[in-house]
């Protein structure tokens, strides 16, 4: 391969790189139509992203457990906790706190402002 032939070949390659074959009419439009037709819908992807953000399927067990435990504590609270559920349902009494046991509450001046 002589140098003139090599130079000519490089020149031809360069021309081909800078002047690619013209695109057939409508090809770009057809490709774009395919792209948009195949594109996943954003809403579905966004919901899937939110679901993944909270841990996806593996987090579902933990979520159910936490909900059940919270519900059970409300229905049958351990000793020391007020029976909020029963009070709400029956409307008998409300949980109260002895005034002399929470002096800190007066530091905000609530008792003075409200008389």
């Amino acid at each position, binding site marked *: *391969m*002589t140098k*003139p*032939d*090599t*130079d*000519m*070949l490089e*020149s*031809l*390659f360069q*021309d*081909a*790189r800078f*002047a*690619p*074959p*013209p*695109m*057939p009419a409508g*090809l*770009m439009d*057809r*490709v*774009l139509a*395919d*792209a*948009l037709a*195949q*594109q*996943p*819908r*954003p*809403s579905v*992807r*966004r919901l899937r*992203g939110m679901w993944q953000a909270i841990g996806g399927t593996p987090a579902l067990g933990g979520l159910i457990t936490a909900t059940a435990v919270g519900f059970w504590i409300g229905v049958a609270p351990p000793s020391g906790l007020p029976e909020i559920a029963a009070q709400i349902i029956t409307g008998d009494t409300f949980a109260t706190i002895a005034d002399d046991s929470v002096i800190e509450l007066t530091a905000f001046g609530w008792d003075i402002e409200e008389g």
Partner: protein
Amino acid sequence: MMQARLNGAPAHTSRDGMTMPASNDADRADPDAYLLLRYAQGDAAAARLLTVQLTPRIFGHAYSVLGDGAEAEDVTQDALMRLWKIAPDWRIGEAKVSTWLYRVVANLCTDRLRKRGRGVALEDIAEPADPTESAEARLQRGARQEALQTALDELPDRQRQAVVLRHIDGLANPEIAAILDIGVEAVESLTARGKRALAKRLGGQRDALGYDDDKT
């Protein structure tokens, strides 16, 4: 986490799939992958950008390899359709989008070349669109492009694919090796033999192509 597979199919059993070396900063090295991610998230602008950027490259490659506009058009649309379908499952860092796409195109071209046999005559090399170019220069350039394409068409398929990927698409040898599923040394051998064959075929046309008095 890097995956050994793409599109859920082992590379050696699927002609569309490919296994590629992983890279930690592949997302930065491959902006097409970022666009593809946005496309998969429903971004219509990403669909337009990918279409505008990839379609001319893929069509140009297919045209140079097949030497036929209608077939190159079919291959381009088919290859890009496969990209759109795989987009939701694409894993950034696994393979460059362009490498994957060139590989799909190379396989589609190989299939077509095998089906039709060799030797397709060029019928329509369109003139370049540069309005400042003189009519004589345009004719000269059209003749040169046609001569190069005719010489490319006469090369064995793999040589032609390697030469087009290396010298017209401007890809590096390791990427060509991944696309053609061969070693880098084999790529070097194919391109060297291809260039020698092209120079031999085109050497006799120096005067006709205006290379004796025009050094461009």
